[in-house]
């Protein structure tokens, strides 16, 4: 923690840095929220731990000047995507890479404490310690990891200007696409039922779109009134259309930060759709997003020998 405050303090003193994008502690137990430090004093509020879940890169373009940003591997992969798609200028960024061993799901933790009032919490190694009004309790971090984390193969950001700690290699990860494969096995009718139940719930609040670091369109297709491809009514028909196209637009681009999943107030498993697209793009075109800035996105290009078994 000292580290990041010191780094931030040094950076903010530089003339060319307008703000430092990081996290501060939120009011709720286990909550961290995005924070923008503009003065050395602000920097003292910065924190960095495995409860820092938000993907911060979408905030970069809120600032006109150069910013420094703390990035976890997820955020860094999003950066790669944005650089690839000309959405941010590399020169206007100072990237501080943070290794990640998996982030925690604050909601899960809140459920675990069963409504007790939390005074404070701290993270030590693979344990999280919770201090109540009276007494304290310790939990194993690995029981509270976000769904995306256990199978994540990127523990060190793929892009950074400075890295806190040493690069981490991964081994023996669980299957990332296990859930997708499980769903794929369902008969068509069950798949449809599964997704219809989820889509039916959709509020169309577009939190999934707005939180997504790669959904940067000035006008989302769903907002396009000419023509109004997707009705504004939130019925199954248009919700489904919205989600299908949303997922399709992220095909070959989604870097699996899971922010949509987290943002969705209605608990729609959006990440499963995104992972399916990831699987599809990887299987057919041998492409994994978030790795290489200089390669065009897979759906903007082609190979003559692309598979076409399904085409008659």
């Amino acid at each position, binding site marked *: 923690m000292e580290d990041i405050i010191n780094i931030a303090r040094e950076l903010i003193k530089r003339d060319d840095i307008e703000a430092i994008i990081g996290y501060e502690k*939120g*009011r709720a137990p286990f909550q961290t929220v995005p924070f*923008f430090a503009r003065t050395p004093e602000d920097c003292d509020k910065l924190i960095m731990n495995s409860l820092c879940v938000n993907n911060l890169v979408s905030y970069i373009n809120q600032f006109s000047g150069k910013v420094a940003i703390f990035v976890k591997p997820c955020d860094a992969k999003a950066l790669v995507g944005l650089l690839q798609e000309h959405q941010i200028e590399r020169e206007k960024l100072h990237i501080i890479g943070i290794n990640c061993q998996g982030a925690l799901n604050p909601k899960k933790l809140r459920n675990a404490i069963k*409504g007790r009032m939390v005074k404070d919490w701290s993270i030590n190694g693979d344990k999280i310690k919770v201090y109540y009004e009276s007494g304290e309790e310790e939990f194993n971090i690995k029981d509270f990891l976000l769904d995306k984390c256990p199978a994540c193969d990127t523990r060190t950001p793929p892009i950074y200007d400075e890295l806190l700690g040493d690069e981490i290699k991964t081994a023996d990860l669980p299957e990332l696409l296990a859930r997708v494969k499980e769903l794929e096995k369902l008969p068509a009718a069950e798949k449809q039922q599964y997704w219809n139940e989820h889509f039916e719930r959709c*509020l169309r*609040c577009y*939190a999934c779109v707005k939180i997504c670091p790669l959904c940067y369109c000035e006008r989302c297709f769903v907002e396009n009134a000419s023509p109004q491809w997707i009705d*504004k009514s939130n019925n199954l028909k248009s919700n489904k259309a919205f989600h299908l196209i949303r997922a399709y637009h992220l095909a070959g681009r989604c870097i699996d930060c899971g922010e949509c999943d987290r943002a969705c*107030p209605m608990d729609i498993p959006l990440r499963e759709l995104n992972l399916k697209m990831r699987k599809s793009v990887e299987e057919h075109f041998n492409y994994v997003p978030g790795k290489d800035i200089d390669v065009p996105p897979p759906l903007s290009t082609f190979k003559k020998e692309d598979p076409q078994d399904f085409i008659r």
Partner: protein
Amino acid sequence: MELILKKEKLKEFLEQLSKNYEIIAPVKEGELINFKSVKDFTKVVMTYQKSIKSPKEFLFPQCEELYKYKFSGKDVEIKPAEVEKKPKAIVGIHPCDAVAIKILDKLFGWDYKDELYFERRNNTLLISITCNTPDWSCFCTSVEGTPYDADGTDIHFTDTGETYYIEGKSEKGKQILQDNNNLFTEAKKEDKDKVEKIKKEIMEQVPVKFDIKKVTENMDCIFDSKLWDRISVKCIHCGACAYLCPTCHCFDINDEGNYEEGKRIRCWDACMFGHFTKMAGGHNPREDEKTRYRQRIFHKFNYYIKNFDTISCVGCGRCIAECPAGMDLVKTLQLIEKGAEHE
């Protein structure tokens, strides 16, 4: 009129009620609690922390048809929408959500009475329940509400452990209790005391976070404060807060259909969306995130008072708990409480 209902008799009570009413009650959907039209009353969850959506959608649906149109030759045929006539009973509504309905009444009733809303409203029975499981985001007590005071509802429940303590609030509510007399027993003094104790305990769980009087007083001089720039940066401009809010009521009117026929619908809209106030020519009076967030806060804590003599926030905390970007209304109001100078 205070009665006691054994918990196991709730099902029976709802069954009786369902003879005349469609029962809307909280049920579990995955991890979420949500109000739904219920037929299997064993699924009803009366004691819950926070329903993900407020039941406002049963009075003011997210999307509703205003009328249908159909071209025939050069002429258009128009067929106004009709609201289904069957009365609804919203069971298990928390006091905050119940208060919200009163707030909505004002807006839909001023000048032009919104018939679609009131047709439903007048056909809806509200059965509230004391909220005994507030969470960190709740702040009803800070906005002049309580977790147990359900003004404006017809019947109020309080979960006392083994039984429900039931108060008939409106004439309609009292009549219903009367009609189902056989299900209840008369409440005794110790029951009453118990309920009072519960209320006190819950109040302690929802400490007052700010002085709402001071906040509203300060609003008028804080419009141009730099505060808004600071707070709003984090906001990602989704509509989650507005759509989950029990008092938000902004809507959009749209035509849906094909080239020859369709319907005009109104559906919820949110002032956080960029295109909300964007005019056809491209001008947008609330172009940036700052003005949009400020509009939201001002609408709830200033404009609404000026027009309707009440704030339009009930402290349910949904906007805080569900904000994906960690925006915190309580923090904003605390800043406003401190005044413009403190930034």
